[in-house]
């Protein structure tokens, strides 16, 4: 390898330029982390780590802040989104790779990618004007009169059905993250060697058995990586959620109640936050989200790398 570099100065320059470009990413990440940390230090000093994470108080007038309500909203909205999106996305991927006739493959593939290209604010507006009334008038009353009657599960569907709540936010989020999981799963499924599948068919396996016993086990790490990438996307989504979540700092048992997420809190309150500790607490929330997303994406990358290594071996 070193011999090559000696031969051609352009190669040296090229490797330096690309190296610097890659290093700049590290500089940016560390820079962002540094700013978040220094800006939030007054809040870290005042509230500490555990107290901030567990306090449900978010009171700008008395300058007492805690992240628990925002964390709760973020976690529940993301969980609902994944709960809906994963089966649908895997279904789409299976259909495209294994079942669909050729002429349908590319239209569906393109449609999925278009879904990922729609700006989130448009999802938010569509959610507020189209989905919210449908949820409030039909779906949520229906859920209350069926699932709401079952003990234990019932508490998830208490309250007034307004359509501006965690459930609606979760559904919008799920539509937004389906493309990520679906296209990565599709790519992972495509990596299953034809010869393995054909052997299974030759042994008399049905399509269902091939998908269940060959394709999915073979590519499960890739699918998992896709799910975690979606998770990262869902954690960071802001505008679409802000429109339909109701933006309320509270922890409730019902999915039909308004809540707040970290990103929505930041988007809503940043411009008018006038006291120093208020601003610092918002930066503190941002720091928490940054660390959370960083860990999530690191996990995703880890699984994707392991999957890749397995296929290339």
């Amino acid at each position, binding site marked *: 390898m070193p011999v090559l570099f000696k031969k051609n100065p352009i190669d040296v320059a090229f490797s330096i330029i690309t190296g610097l470009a890659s290093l700049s990413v590290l500089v940016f990440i560390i820079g962002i982390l540094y700013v978040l940390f220094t800006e939030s230090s007054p809040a870290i000093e005042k509230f500490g780590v555990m107290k901030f994470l567990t306090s449900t*108080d*978010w*009171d*700008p*007038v*008395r300058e007492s802040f805690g992240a628990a309500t925002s964390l709760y909203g973020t976690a529940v909205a993301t969980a609902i989104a994944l709960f809906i999106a994963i089966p649908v996305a895997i279904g789409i991927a299976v259909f495209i790779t294994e079942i669909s006739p050729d002429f349908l493959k590319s239209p569906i593939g393109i449609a999925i990618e278009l879904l990922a290209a729609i700006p989130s604010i448009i999802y938010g507006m569509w959610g*507020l004007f189209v989905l*919210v*009334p449908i949820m*409030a008038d039909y779906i949520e009353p229906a859920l209350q009169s069926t699932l709401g009657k079952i003990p234990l599960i019932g508490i998830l569907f208490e309250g*007034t059905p*307004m*359509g*501006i709540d965690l459930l609606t936010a979760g559904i919008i989020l799920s539509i937004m993250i389906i493309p990520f999981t679906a296209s990565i799963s599709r790519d992972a499924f495509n990596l299953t060697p034809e010869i393995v599948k054909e052997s299974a068919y030759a042994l008399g396996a049905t399509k269902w058995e091939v998908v269940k016993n060959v394709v999915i086990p073979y590519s499960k790490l890739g699918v998992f990586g896709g799910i975690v990438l979606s998770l990262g996307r869902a954690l960071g989504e802001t505008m679409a959620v*802000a*429109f339909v979540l*109701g*933006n*309320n*700092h509270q922890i409730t048992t019902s999915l039909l109640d*308004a809540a*707040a997420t970290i990103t*929505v809190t930041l*988007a*809503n*309150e940043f*411009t*008018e*936050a*006038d006291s120093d500790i*208020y601003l610092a607490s918002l930066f503190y929330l941002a720091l928490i989200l940054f660390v959370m997303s960083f860990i999530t994406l690191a996990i995703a990358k880890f699984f994707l790398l392991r999957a890749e290594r397995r296929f290339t071996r």
Partner: protein
Amino acid sequence: MKTILTLVAAITLIFSFGIAGAAETLNGAGASFPYPVYSAWGYNYNKATGIRLNYQSIGSGGGVRQIINRTVDFGASDAPLKPEKLEKENLMQFPAVIGGVVPVFNLPGIEPGAIKLTSNALCKVLLGDITYWDNKDIKKLNPDVPLKHKKITVVRRSDGSGTTAIFTTYLSQVCPEWKEKVGAGKAVKWPVGIGGKGNEGVANYVQKVKNSIGYVEFAYAKQNKLSYLRLENAAGNFVKPSFESFQDAAASGDFDPSKHFYLWLTNAPGKNAWPISGATFILLAKEKKESNPKVVKFFDWAFKNGDDTAKRLVYVPLPEPLKNKVRKYWKSQGIY
């Protein structure tokens, strides 16, 4: 080569315009509530004088931060700064236009203005002590209105806002329990309800959610044809929000130039005054001797020529005596 030359020429031309324009531009930033009227005034002022107004509506908090950092010619805030704070930051302050906050509701089949509330009843609803529309306190005030046993959904702002500051200041003034439990501010810890982003967000939620009650700027209530409440004012009359009731509030408010006009116009004593009114303010840096007269000139022009524009956009112009008070204040500061 020729295309490159043309391109360079074009870019130079654009930049030279930019530089020429920069000398004739007033830069302001702050409150989003008066943004429509400031930009309409700015447009007309530009046509009349050639001076451009560049107003960024980044929120009252942002406006205060920007003028303290001296990055703009003027800041704008819906919440007045206290005289001590102004002295500390070496700032001046004067009101520019009046607005009002209007409680609105969505009750199918009930007319706008049909429901009367006392400040006490409104406070109880927002604290979550009254949860149904047919509560006896509401029924007693509105014996002729067919109120049903429906749960009240409170809609409020989720983002920090001057509208919220005016509304919660009013509630803290008229309702000791509110003052003790929640307090006043641009963002507060609401006991109940869902939050919409911006005035348009609240207006939208109120339209979408049946049996809801919310609060918006007067302009949004009018434009969206939302049903408003009638409220009891300090003089004990039930008034409805209108230009006249805002004007009455502005006229009866004691704006004191020696305190840099620091005044919350809420619960004003006027007989027909709308109780949740407020002025929006302009902030100037005292040491900016060059740009201040230009800013003042613009607002003086707007005071003289901008009343119709303001009214068309559903803002309430300052009453004439108050305008003169502001002009005297400018004179005393040596910028008029």
